[in-house]
């Protein structure tokens, strides 16, 4: 894959990660209106979805995927895919609970419930793993060998025909 095509993809991935980090850390300072909060949280979820889509598009671009050997690629990056989906679920859950608590008045103290505290801590900790594994996957997928033909791929393809 040419560098010219890879560069905007990597930049887009970094941007998505940065938006997610920014929203995660500064959402508490942006408690102006409940609708604003809602929009921001929805943006965060959409960013996670977009990130997952871009990663899968990169997968589809690899020669291995095009040869039909989907399992191998998924097997190699299973940790990343798992983390992304788990984090997405945690995010959505927390946001839903968060918004139900803050919808009436954004400036209330919602942390009386121990459950929301725990979920909050877990979601924020999972975000670290999400950033780390996602960035690592982006950089690993830059390997040009993924997009090139090789004897081994030919052999595997012959095996599975």
């Amino acid at each position, binding site marked *: *894959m040419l560098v010219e095509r890879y560069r905007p993809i*990597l930049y887009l991935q970094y941007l998505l990660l940065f938006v997610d980090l920014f929203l995660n850390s500064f959402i*508490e300072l942006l408690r102006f209106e409940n609708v604003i909060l809602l929009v921001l949280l929805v943006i965060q979820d959409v960013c996670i979805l977009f990130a997952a889509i871009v990663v899968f598009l990169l997968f589809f671009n690899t020669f291995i995927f095009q040869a039909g050997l989907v399992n191998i690629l998924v097997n*190699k990056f299973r940790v990343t895919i798992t983390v992304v989906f788990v984090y997405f679920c945690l995010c959505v859950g927390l946001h839903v609970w968060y918004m139900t608590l803050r919808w009436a*008045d954004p400036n209330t103290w919602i942390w009386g419930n121990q459950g929301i505290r725990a979920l909050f801590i877990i979601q924020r900790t999972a975000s*670290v793993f999400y950033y780390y594994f996602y960035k690592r996957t982006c950089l690993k997928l830059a390997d040009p060998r993924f997009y*090139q033909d090789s004897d081994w791929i030919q052999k595997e393809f012959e095996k599975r025909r």
Partner: protein
Amino acid sequence: MEETKATTRKTKLPPLSSDNTEPADKPKKKVVRKKKKAPEEPPADGENQPKPTPRRKKKAAASADSTTATENGVGGEVKTPKKKKKVVKKTDTTEVDPTTARSATSQGEDVDGSKASLIKTPKDGTPRKKKVKKKVKKPTDTVEPEGAFDNTLVAELTDLQDDIVTHDSKKDDDDDEEEYKKPYSTASHAMKSQPTEKFYIETDGGFKGENKSRFIKRQAEVEKEKAVVREEPKNTTIEFAINTQAVIRTFSLFCHGLLAGLAVWHIVMAYILLDFPLEDFILHYGRLALPVQCIFFILLVICTVSALDRFDIANPRQGFILKALTLQNGTVSVVFYFAALIVSLANHALEDQMHLYDQQTRNFTNSAEKVTVKDSDLTLWRNLNTSRNILTIIGWFIISITPLTDRLTDNLKQTEEEDLLGVEVDKPKSAIA
């Protein structure tokens, strides 16, 4: 031998003035003799007069060509001692030696070569030359103006011939080497030039002095640099990815330091402010509570991800886990940063409480619910805050022990060696753009 030489001198060319001028006169005389068919010189006494004149003419004619004149003037002077030597040793030989052509002619030896036409070939010796001179004497006056031009030509030709050094096998080796090395030595034997420490390099403005040893050192360094930097930065996707990772690493190093500094400041400030009663504390710290919490969170996340990158957790290689568990490579900093993150998040609720309490006391909020902050809450906050900051500082300390470790970049760079997807992969045949 010297006597014969002296006698020949006496017979042919009586000295003009003193002995000092003899060597100077001699070659010129000989040159003159060679050049002119006419010239020339009266056998013994009469030679003095035409010699100065042809010499002067030759000088005048050759004035434009200063090199020849100087050569003749200088070379001639130096030559004579050698020629004397040659003359001393060569009296028996009849071989042609262009450097000794003058002496040869003076001694009556055979002279071959291109100058045969110019130079009379005396067979017997001096008496013949005398005769030749006598014969030639008449037409000297008429031929002189033309002869002046011929003088320069002949002078140049003889100089050219003199430049050719032929090897005479019969001579001693020492003499040969001497002649080879210094045919025209213009150096005075009194003081030879000594090599100094400086040498001068020409620049645009002029000459710049340069110390030899320093220059040599610098040249060596430049050569080393040239030898080292040969690889071109490959313009592949993986190179681009590694470059972005380098940028992130630089930024995260800055964040590590910034976070550690903030942690130290926060501990000090918190302890000073906690000397005051609760209300005062909230009054002073209330506005800082939430922003500081957010900044701590974002910096902790960046630092934790950076620590994970440095010790590439997702890529355990041989012995890495063992080293990590035995605290050999600093992976424990990841643990510290994670702990700091969790504690900070646990503190979030209390900080939010303080923030809302502060807003309440300032009457910024309209909420029905009243928020209270108890002393027990404050104690808890203080403990959590202190532990978070200390964990951050320890994590930064461990990172700073080995600040250059970056296993992610190392692993990314090892794309050539390791096999892809965990299986044997042959070298790729064709690239799909």
